[in-house]
């Protein structure tokens, strides 16, 4: 994969921080929603808002890409010790994360 080559480190770092900040934002919004209490009606109303849908879809896309980047980093650190191919670990993550992405988008839209 080209984007995993040398010279992409700074882009990875920036992307990772942006993704992580989006995850923090999501966590805060999730906590606020749960603490304020949800009913079936309030949840339906929230999820029918197109801005909420777009926000969640963007967050989900970042989380998807971030999970693959993180898997690549983590697999690179532990694959040798665990005697597993790093590509297999990343491959599994790509497949599972893609299922998450599709399932998540299906729930949102």
């Amino acid at each position, binding site marked *: 994969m080209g984007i995993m080559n040398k010279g992409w480190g700074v882009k990875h770092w920036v992307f990772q921080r942006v993704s992580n900040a989006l995850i*923090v934002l999501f*966590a805060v919004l999730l906590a606020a929603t749960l603490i304020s209490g949800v009913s*079936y009606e309030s949840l339906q109303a929230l999820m029918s808002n197109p801005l909420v849908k777009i926000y969640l879809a963007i967050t989900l896309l970042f989380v998807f890409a971030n999970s693959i980047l993180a898997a690549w980093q983590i697999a690179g650190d532990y694959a040798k010790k665990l005697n597993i191919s790093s590509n297999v670990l990343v491959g599994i*993550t790509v497949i599972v994360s893609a299922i998450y992405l599709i399932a998540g988008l299906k729930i949102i839209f």
Partner: protein
Amino acid sequence: MSDTRPVNLDIATVRLPISAYASILHRICAVIIWVGFTALLVIASSALKSEASFDDLAVTLQSNFLVQFLVWGFLSALGYYCMGTIKHIIQDFGHFEDKKGGQMISTAAIAGGVVLCLLAGVLVWA
């Protein structure tokens, strides 16, 4: 000339500084969140499917310990993940990067994570 420097330290045999625990915990929490994402999707899907399935979910969340534990674990991992992220971003801007500062911010992040963990427990069980 003999080189007596230790090489290839086995990380499992040395006592690690708190900053190392703060760092590895961030990774562990990331993995928990990633695995727990399945639960988040299932919960979100049943909460939105119909009013009946929302009510079923509400009953499950109030009575099923295993589901409560999963939700608590997910929220706790997310809590520390956020602490670790904030720590990272603060350090990226050049603060708390020396040995002492690193220990301080790592302790603060872990302490914050413990507090969020307890608060998640209150949210789930209270």
